[in-house]
Structure formats: structure tokens, C-alpha cells
């Protein structure tokens, strides 16, 4: 779930990154020479809303952009190989049952305030993220984790339960490592200012105006697989708050803005023709665009009804309407960039005739005067928590098979509560981290957010929940993959959730900006440079 309505729309639709194919982000051999003498400069980055600060410990929207430049993580996820590589940690060992991770830290890393990275600092970091008030995303990632400083540069993480996906968690900017002084600050203070080990440091944060970052000249610990070392090329990053999107597009065209992270796909052609570089779709490596169905509603308890909805989604039409056809239909609940993705497209076809058959089998044989099916005096009417082009197209498509979709989005401030209590039949969510455990976090009844409102007394629901729990404690990779695939298949085949399109973003780079590296949806400006 994202913050602004426009982002919600952009995110509810989805996509895949073609490896290394981001426009202006390729790293051909010839470019290295071209970069010579191209250090320095100020890149202007547009944000649509005030971020209220820079710290991902309490804010949700800064991790992909501002925070990722300020902090590094213990490990780096190589987006091309899905492998985890050394970053602040040079190596690590994982206990056989995946409940303990021991990291050996680099001994030459300093924070922006001059202090040294040690195991004690890492310990203080994790403890700080366990205090009250920390945003649920980072809090969830390190929930119950105990850190032991074995020696100056060895930190042992003891997890409350086995977690085979923990390297993924710890690689995220949400839990990027900050200095001891920052970790000791009250949350309210660190919201506005943090000291990390990242390639950029914070110069100023001004409400509703701008966040300014400056390059760190002594930065020298980038992950080895990134084709650059030493300090960043760009001298200064200016994040400007520009609430009106049309102004951002005009500014990109007239070179007043160099980067925007969430281009409306419908604007792509206009921007391209004005010389703005447009990335391929940057796929979020978590889940595809998903719409959990609430199975606690008696209508949706019958999986044939859920499957009927599923077969009446015209993904190509949604792709055309929201992405000019540039995205891909989902073929699993996982995004294609998630290492756990398998092809389940056999369950995700468009076949309205089959939908009608399924509904009739389920006893919804009578059609009322308004074209909506009726059973035992009850209309086949469902409520959606999101008003997006996707739900609007579904509304039209489902009407053709006799299902009414009432689009009745909650206010942002009440959305979580109303969705969690099962007030809606079709909801939405977002998970961005590339591991299978997101299925448990999202759909698990025992220890997850229970998006589909599973009923433990129902045998099928209970079996799904058990699979979601089991994958988290299975450390054998092959075995785990098999369990995960089983769970994903149940979710997709039995339509506990509707996977629509891949989820992703399109970046715009002004004419002079090059090589912003995507990692998931994170933006790494470390490799970026400005041509004159």
C-alpha cells in the first residue's frame, strides 16, 4: 500500500524489469571512459509529497529514495543474480535451522559523524528498531531478534524463530545501519536527521520544500558487484517537493528536474518525444499486483465464486488502459523478479464463459432484473476498497457475468483498520521484498496480517496457513521452494487473491542524468552521473 492515491494507482498495476535494461542505466564498457571528468554537479529529484523526514524507521516512503542514499546494509542483494553479497559485512554464517546469522563486519567503515562501525553499533541499531513507535515495516523485519556482539566486528543475530528469508530483510533500507548516536536518539529526532555510512550525507531537510544530500568524499565500501568504487560521482542531490505532477513533467522536459521515480505510464510517450529518458518498468521484487479476496464473506467462501471472478479479469485490457500495454500480466502471486516465481499462468486466464459456468455450479443461477445474480434472495454484490483503473475495469467485466462490484474506497487514515476487520471483499496490498516469507506476512492467519481473513476451522484455509508457517522454518532451500510453490499455487488456483499485472514503476531521467541503478524499486544514485 502506498501513500498517495496516484501512487496507489501506479502501484496497483505492475511490471517486470528486463535485467539491466533501464534506459540510461546500462553500463557498457565505453561509458567508463566517458565518465572521466564528469564528476560533480547537482541532480534535482522530484518528489510529489513532503516526506516528513529522512528516516525509514518511522517513515514509510523514504526508504527507496532518500534513506537508501544515506545508509548501507549488512548485505547487498544483487538484483541480477538474486544472490546476497557482502556490503558492510564481509561474510556471514547461517545456522542449520536458519535461526542464527553471524555477520563479520568490515573494519574500515565509518559513519558520517566519524565514529566506527562495530558489532555494538549493529546491536544498538536493531534494539532501536524494537522500541515503540517504529514503523511496522522495519519493526516487523527485526521483531524479536536479539543481537550479540561476539567481538568488535562480529555480530550474532539470534532470531525468535527460523527465518530462511532473513538476509532479504536485513538487506533493506528500512533497516539500514545508522550511527550509535543516531540509534540512541528518540524516534522523533531521528525522523528528521540520521547519520549513516552511505555514499551521501544529509545537509538539510525543509518541510514541504526540499531535502539536500551531499556526497561523502571518503566513501569506499560499495558492494563489489556494483561497477564503481570510491565516492559517488554526483556532488549534490536535491529532492524537491513538487506536488503537482504536471509541473514535474514540464520540468523534466525543460531540464529543471533530472529524476522522477513514479511516472504515470500514460505520460511516457509525451515525455519520450521531448527527449526525456524513460526506464523500462522497474519491477518491485515482492508480489505482483494483488487483490486479496475476503473469504470470510459467505459469498466468497465458495471458491468457485472466487475463481469465477478470476477468470473474468481481462488483464490485457487493464494493461492497455493503465500502461499503454507496456506491462505484463501476472503469472503468479509473486512478481517475476522474485526468486520464488514460477509460471502459474494456467490458472490466470481470461475466460468469462467459464466464469458463468462456475457461478451456476455454485448455485448462482438466477439473474435479477438489474443483471446481477441472486441466490436465496441475496444479490451477488461485492465491495472493493480501492478505486483504480483496475477495479473500474473489473467492475465492468464482472457486471457481464452478473456480479456487482461496489467501489467504495475508505479514507487513507481508516484503510488499514477497515481492511483488516474484513469490512471489504476485495482489497489491495503491497509487498516489496524479494522473499517467500511475504506470503506468510500477508496471508498467514497464525502469524501474518491475514489479508484473506482465513478461517482456521476451514480445512483448506488451515492447510494454507500451515504451508505458510512451514516455509518460514524450513532451511533446506529446495524443500522450502517446493513448499512455497505449493502455497502460491493454492493462493492463485483457489483465488484467495487475484493477481492482476506485475507491479512496478517507471522512472524518468532528464537528458543529462545517467546510470541510476535500480535495486528492486530502490534507487542507487551512487552510480549516477551528470553529462554536461
Amino acid at each position, binding site marked *: 500500500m502506498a501513500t498517495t492515491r496516484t501512487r496507489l494507482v501506479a502501484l496497483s498495476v505492475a511490471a517486470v524489469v528486463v535485467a539491466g535494461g533501464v534506459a540510461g542505466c546500462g553500463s557498457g564498457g565505453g561509458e567508463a571512459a566517458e565518465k572521466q571528468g564528469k564528476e560533480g554537479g547537482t541532480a534535482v529529484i522530484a518528489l510529489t509529497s513532503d516526506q516528513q523526514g529522512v528516516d525509514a524507521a518511522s517513515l514509510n516512503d523514504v526508504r527507496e529514495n532518500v534513506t537508501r542514499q544515506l545508509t548501507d546494509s549488512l548485505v547487498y542483494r544483487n538484483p541480477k543474480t538474486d544472490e546476497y553479497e557482502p556490503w558492510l559485512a564481509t561474510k556471514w554464517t547461517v545456522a542449520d535451522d536458519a535461526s542464527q546469522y553471524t555477520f563479520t563486519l568490515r573494519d574500515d567503515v565509518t559513519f558520517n559523524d566519524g565514529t566506527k562501525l562495530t558489532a555494538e553499533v549493529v546491536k544498538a541499531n536493531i534494539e532501536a528498531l524494537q522500541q*515503540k513507535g517504529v514503523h*511496522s515495516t522495519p519493526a516487523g523485519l527485526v521483531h524479536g531478534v536479539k543481537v550479540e556482539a561476539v567481538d568488535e566486528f562480529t555480530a550474532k543475530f539470534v532470531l525468535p524463530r527460523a527465518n530462511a528469508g532473513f538476509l532479504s530483510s536485513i538487506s533493506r533500507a528500512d533497516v539500514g545501519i545508522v550511527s550509535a548516536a543516531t540509534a540512541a536518539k528518540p524516534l522523533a529526532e531521528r525522523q*528528521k536527521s540520521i547519520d549513516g555510512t552511505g555514499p551521501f550525507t544529509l545537509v538539510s531537510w525543509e518541510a514541504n520544500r526540499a531535502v539536500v544530500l551531499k556526497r561523502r568524499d571518503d566513501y569506499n565500501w560499495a558492494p563489489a558487484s556494483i561497477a564503481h568504487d570510491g565516492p559517488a560521482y554526483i556532488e549534490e542531490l536535491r529532492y524537491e517537493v513538487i506536488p*503537482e505532477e504536471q509541473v514535474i513533467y*514540464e520540468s523534466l522536459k525543460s531540464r529543471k528536474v533530472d529524476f522522477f521515480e513514479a511516472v504515470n505510464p500514460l505520460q511516457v510517450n509525451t515525455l519520450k518525444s521531448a527527449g526525456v529518458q524513460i526506464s523500462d518498468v522497474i519491477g518491485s521484487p515482492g508480489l505482483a499486483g494483488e487483490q486479496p479476496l475476503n473469504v470470510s464473506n459467505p459469498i466468497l467462501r465458495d471458491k468457485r465464486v472466487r475463481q469465477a471472478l478470476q477468470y473474468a479479469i481481462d488483464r490485457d485490457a487493464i494493461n492497455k488502459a493503465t500502461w499503454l500495454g507496456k506491462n505484463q500480466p501476472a503469472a503468479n502471486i509473486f512478481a517475476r523478479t522474485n526468486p520464488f516465481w514460477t509460471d502459474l499462468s494456467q490458472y490466470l486466464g481470461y475466460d468469462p464463459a467459464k466464469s458463468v459456468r462456475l457461478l451456476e455450479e455454485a448455485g448462482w443461477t438466477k439473474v435479477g432484473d438489474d443483471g446481477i445474480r441472486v441466490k436465496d434472495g441475496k444479490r451477488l454484490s461485492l465491495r472493493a476498497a480501492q478505486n483504480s483503473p483496475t477495479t473500474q475495469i473489473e467492475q465492468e467485466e464482472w457486471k457481464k457475468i452478473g456480479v456487482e462490484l461496489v467501489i467504495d474506497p475508505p479514507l487513507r487514515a481508516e484503510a488499514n483498520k477497515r481492511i483488516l476487520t474484513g469490512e471489504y471483499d476485495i482489497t489491495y496490498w503491497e509487498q516489496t521484498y524479494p522473499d517467500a516469507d511475504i506470503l506468510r506476512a500477508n496471508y*498467514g492467519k497464525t502469524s501474518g496480517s491475514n489479508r484473506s481473513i482465513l478461517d482456521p476451522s476451514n480445512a483448506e484455509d488451515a492447510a494454507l496457513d500451515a504451508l505458510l508457517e512451514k516455509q518460514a522454518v524450513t532451511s533446506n532451500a529446495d524443500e522450502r521452494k517446493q513448499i512455497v510453490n505449493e502455497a502460491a499455487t493454492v493462493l492463485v488456483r483457489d483465488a484467495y487473491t487475484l493477481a492482476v499485472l506485475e507491479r512496478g514503476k517507471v522512472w524518468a531521467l532528464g537528458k543529462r542524468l545517467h546510470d541510476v541503478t535500480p535495486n528492486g524499486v530502490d534507487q542507487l544514485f551512487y552510480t549516477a552521473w551528470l553529462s554536461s
Partner: protein
Amino acid sequence: MGYLKYISRRLFYGILVLFLTFTGSFFLLFIIPGDAAGALTTGGEGANLAAALQEQRELLGLDRPIQTQYLDALWGALHGDFGVSFREKIPASTVYFDAFGNTLRLASVGLLLAIVVGLAVGLLTQAVHLAWLREILLAVPPLFVSLPIFLTALLLLQLFAFTLGVIEPFGDESLTGLVIASLCIAFPGGANIAQLLAVNLERTMRSPYVETLSNWGLTRREILYRHGLKNAVLPVLTSFGTTVGNIFAGTVITETVFSRNGVGRIIVDAVNAKDIPVVLISVTVSAAIFVVVNLLVDALYPVIDKRIQVA
């Protein structure tokens, strides 16, 4: 003595308005579904969102009975302390007044331009002798009154920032930037003043006393400036409070399109996020401005027109 009593009564009403605005907006925020805890946990990917919601609710004190929360907020406000912003985590007064100066500048320049241009155009409708010019002057204000600020703002930005390059497209804090942004709110405000003045001048200049004055030998110009204007300006003054209100309301969209920091944007964000302390200080200060402007207008009435009895 009568004047003092008149002013004290107006003052009492002003304070009552402030109290009702504060109380009304506090309870309105509770009637609108959702709370700040919900807004703060938006986007959470954690497995246990229900607990996260409860934790935030406790930290923000939203789990206390509503009357306790209200009395605390009221007591604080009476002492000038509106509490800490739920989302910014700094005092609500800092959040508000950091932006207030910007909005005040924008609104003041907009208002000044509206008054000057509005009065000038209104007067000219009676002062010019060319019939076609008069028709134009009478036709333009109704058009400008209904100009959508959003459209004006985008057009002005397109012209001055992207075509002419006179100002920066976002966050321009120069005087030129300020004046151009203020045009968006000056247009409808000024048109409103011009329209009111023109209509009332027209009516005044047709009254029997004008004929009498004319028979005494005064020129039309003398009548217009010495007598007509004085009478026709009263309705304009009456609606001045509304004009100020409209101009402040117009800053919301102007600030958004011109990417200017200001209370307009802050209030919208705060309402969306259910940031009660920021909403309360915003509406209270806005209401106070409205009350003071109306109080001044009321105080000026008897001074301008001696016929108005204040007892």
C-alpha cells in the same frame, strides 16, 4: 459610549466563533472515520499490523476517552500550546508558523493587487466615457470571478516559468515569483471587488441626490469621487471579510501548483493524516484572522458612514 458597547459585543461574538470553530473541528475529526494511527501505519508491510495500529494509538494518546482528549486540547490551546504534530513529531505551532509567513506574503500581495485593480476597474466603469470600453470593463469581472484558480495557476506557470523563463517552475521565492503566484488569487478577488463596486456606483450615480448635486453645478467627476464612491464602497467593505477568506482559500491550490510551502498545503496534509494538533492550530488561526478582519470592518462602518447607528 455606544461605540464601545458595539465593539465589545462584536468582540464577544468573535471569541464565541473561535471557540465554536475549535470545538467543531475537533469533533468533526472524530466523526470522519479513521485516525492518525491508521495514517501513520499506512504502507506497513509487517506481519502484525493490528498490533502496530494499537501501539501508535497508545503513543498518540488516541486510546483515551474523547472528552479527555478534547479538554486536554482545549486547555493546551488556551495556553497557546497545541501539542506535537502526530506526523512531523515537532510542535504543531512550529509546523504551522514556519509556513504561515509564506502564505501571509502570498495572500497579502494577492489581496493588495485585488484591491488596487478591483477598485480601479470598478471606478473606471463610471469614469470612462467611451461606451465600448465601458462595456469591456463591465464584461471582464464576471469572467474573472469564475476563473478556476487551478487553471490560472497552471497557465501562469506555463507562461512565466516554462515559456518565458522569468521564474523557477518550483519553489521560487523571489519577489517576481511571489507576484506571479499571487495573480491566481488576485484575479477572482479583484474581479469580485470590481463587480460589486461597478454595480453600486451605477446605482448610486442614478439616485435622485446625484441629480440634485448636478443641478447645483457639480461636475460628474466631482460627484463620482466625493459622493458616489463613498456610498458605493460600503457593500464592498461588507464583503471584504469574505474576500479575505476566499483569498486564503485560494492559496491552497496556488501553493500546490507553484510548489510553495504554506499553510494551505499543511492543512490539507494534516486533515488527510488526521494530524489533530496541526488541524486545530490551523483552523484556530484561520478563524482568528477571519474574526479580526470582520471586527475591523464592523469597527469601520460607523466611521465611514455616520448614518449608521451603533447603539
